């Protein structure tokens, strides 16, 4: 749509975090004893349940709130969440799958060029911040998209946003800015 680049950038989604509620109180001890592939953390008050098929890890609280992490796409996150709710249902809880929401999407992307972070930060002063002593990447926050992009000097990016669409838009938005500040790769 609004892409200004010819070559397609590979945006690889590495992690999707989603939450949902089961609308019923969950007895963590029952889950820990009878469930399969569970880790009980009584000191924190949650149970981790890992699923293989969509490789996800879910943190289950007794209030019925469940946070599902590790999926590689939004659909996979939802499928994994439903499977998880199904597992809990089989354990005997009156589970109602409700309030499913993808909370965070983490993606990585690689520019075909290196980036001069100092120039990049100078050009985008308030939106971008760079503190090399703290972190080797420059942080670029897009407020209206609620997305955060971390730019490394090698040209790699990590993008986090509330959903996949925002992440893609954020990459497209930042690409021309990075293109301006690219650093010639060849070093002598």
């Amino acid at each position, binding site marked *: 749509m609004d892409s200004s680049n010819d070559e397609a950038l590979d945006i690889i989604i590495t992690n999707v975090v989603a939450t949902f509620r089961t*609308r*019923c*109180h969950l*007895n*963590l*001890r*029952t889950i820990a004893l009878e469930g*399969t*592939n569970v*880790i009980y953390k*009584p000191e*924190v*008050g*949650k149970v981790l349940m*890992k*699923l*293989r*098929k969509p490789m996800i890890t879910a943190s289950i*609280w*007794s*209030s019925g709130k469940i946070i599902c992490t590790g999926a590689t796409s939004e*659909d996979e996150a*939802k*499928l994994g969440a*439903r*499977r998880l*709710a*199904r*597992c809990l*249902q*089989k354990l*005997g809880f*009156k*589970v*109602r*799958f*409700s*309030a*499913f929401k993808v909370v965070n999407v983490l993606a990585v992307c690689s520019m075909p060029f290196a980036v001069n972070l100092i120039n990049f930060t100078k050009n985008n002063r308030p939106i971008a911040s760079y503190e090399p002593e703290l972190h080797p990447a420059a942080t670029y926050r897009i407020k209206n998209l609620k997305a955060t992009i971390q730019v490394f000097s090698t040209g790699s990016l990590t993008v986090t946003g509330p959903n996949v669409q925002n992440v893609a838009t954020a990459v497209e938005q930042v690409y021309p800015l990075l293109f301006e500040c690219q650093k010639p790769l060849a070093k002598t």
Partner: protein
Amino acid sequence: MELGKDLKKENFYILEVIVQKLLFNILSLVFSSQHNVLFQNNSETLATFSLPAGLAYPVQIPAGVTLQTASGQLYKVNVPVVVTQAPVGQQPATQAMQKVTEWREASAPQPTAIPPNPIAPHEVETSSVPAQSVTQPKTILPSSKEAIVILLGQLLPFYKLDFSEFTTVMFLLAIHSQLDLGYSQFSDIVQLDGPAGNSDLEEEEEVPLEENDFLGIINAEAMKALQEGNESSDGNSISSSSDGEGADELDPLNSGDDVIEQDIPDLFDTDNVIVCQYDKIHRSKNRWKFHLKDGVMCYGGRDYVFSKAVGEAEW
């Protein structure tokens, strides 16, 4: 002595609680109402159980009965209970101890019972309770919180309750004496998570639907709402999803909705079992490292014993 002086004219009932040895029985018996019929004085639907006037004491009452004493205090203890009637002025503690030893010898084949702590309900002011509870440690007055603590204090040397369980048990017993609700799915270890008292109360409201009429009206309505929401969901049926992807309404979890059962349940058919204690269990992503100790294992049909074992696995 001091107890006798403070008694009113009414008869003095002593409840002796025989508590079984196994640790988990204490709480599971006290709080589980799943398999025990519950008699309550105040519920509309359940029968009242009160000791008849002409009953010959001592009376042996089976487990799971709520008794109401003269003072109006309700006690539900899911362990076999002996109710005796002691004449006024007699030391309840010593008499209780006598009865206890008789009982203990009688029930020798049972798993060894600890010396019971008689619970003495009456109308003594609570201010005098703690002092007496200290001097006569066997006499417990459940109407006061301090008394409950003492009871547990007595239990501690016998059961070696660790601290977390101690506080939890104390908390639950305190709730029970005031609220007198039925519990289900309670086991020995209670969750320590969630807000202080609310999580337990929430769990009570989610009590199995069979006990619908036992709960209050509000809870019954909540149960009905839950039931209607789940009427299509069956525990074990699997059906293909029709619009699972698009519709994001509140409850389309229609009996599984095409979610495939966990693959490879045969993993647990294996007979290779290790029962042990752990020093350290470590996990990175899906790589596990085990440092185990003091265990026995059955592997490949053969039994092994180890004092130390180290293992690695990939999940």
